[in-house]
């Protein structure tokens, strides 16, 4: 199973996601990347993240993504 960082690096390999507190504000993820991220998380962890949870604040940094996955019973 891929880690969240591995999923993120698969989308934007040029960035170090451990150093940012806000991937979107820092220009590391655009709107297309967010959709791709959700799709990859769905596939990697066998879940379907609800459309209502696809919000910038839920994917803005590693802690937020971890918290989002916990909501679906995933402890990455």
């Amino acid at each position: 199973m891929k880690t969240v960082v591995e999923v993120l690096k698969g989308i934007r390999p040029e960035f170090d996601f451990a150093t940012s507190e806000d991937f979107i504000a820092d220009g590391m993820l655009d709107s297309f990347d967010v959709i791709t991220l959700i799709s990859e998380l769905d596939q990697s962890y066998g879940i379907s993240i609800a459309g209502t949870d696809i919000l910038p604040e839920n994917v803005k940094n590693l802690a937020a993504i971890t918290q989002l996955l916990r909501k679906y019973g995933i402890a990455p």
Partner: protein
Amino acid sequence: MNFDFAGKRIAGILTVLPANERSFMDDMKNFDFPEEKSLKLKKVMGYDRHRIVTGETCVSDLAVHGFRHLFDKGLVKPDELDALVVVTQSPDYFMPATSSVIQGQLNLKHDMLCMDISQGCAGFVIGLIQAFMMLDQASIRKVALVNADVLSRKVSARDKNSFPLIGDAACITIVEKTDDRQPIYANLKMDGTHHDVLIIPAGGFRTPSTPETAVVEDVGDNNYRSKDNLTMNGTAVFNFVQVEVPPMIESLLQQAALPIEQVDYFMFHQPNKFMLNKLADRMRVPRDRMPSNVVENFGNASGATIPTNITLNLAEPLRNGTLMLCMAGFGVGLTWASMVMPVGNLAFCEIIDY
């Protein structure tokens, strides 16, 4: 707001698509965007190819082509049409109404009600509601509903968020009275406080087009567009759809006292495959009962996507039988509307090229 109708039916649906087809991957080569990322988007969002008009083709051109096909094949008799409702966000002119232009080009009778409605992605359901209300009049027995847009002409070719997925189309739906009293249920909501999340900022009377509004600006993420171009706050629209549509459908089916299992297909507006799959999952509807292949084949043509969805995916079963369809549109306004009704024994249900 809830509606219910009886004694009305859809008699036939025709989709007219521009013959000009473009490939998503070819379009994306025009942007500073990695090919690997485009391939991922293609898979996730279901983008593949789209149909857009060439030159100065207008809504009336597509619609007149479709009507002539129906008249020539004897599928509709011109004199039987008592009303013409055109739903579009890209009219031929500010004035007169595009419905009047179409009426004139087809030499339709003068004893006829022509009306334009400014609606987009919810426009098929809104148009059906309007057509059904017209049919309550004794003098109106048959209504032609046209859902048509050529919004590719208002999208910046340098805006990768819009251009590779926009589609143009016209759909003609014939609606008529029937002795069958099977109920039709619909609902709609509108929220004009968010009218700016899907907008063409310039070109109307508020901000007329000028050389300044035509200046193409860098709007971030390597996208460029002018104030004369269509702009969409994708995140806001996505969240609006995910929050508002599932409860709207739940409310509609409650109103109709119809279990979700008794709906054969959920024919929704199609901005992209990802959005529809998320809606299907949230509503616990199997994805194969919510077709999501219109955008990958033809692009997003606003209010024409639901009837195109029907002509693309259900032509054969609807010519030879009847299905319970739940339809939903959502977008500009903001507007969201849905309808559940039996559709079937159609005289025609097909797609033709312009």
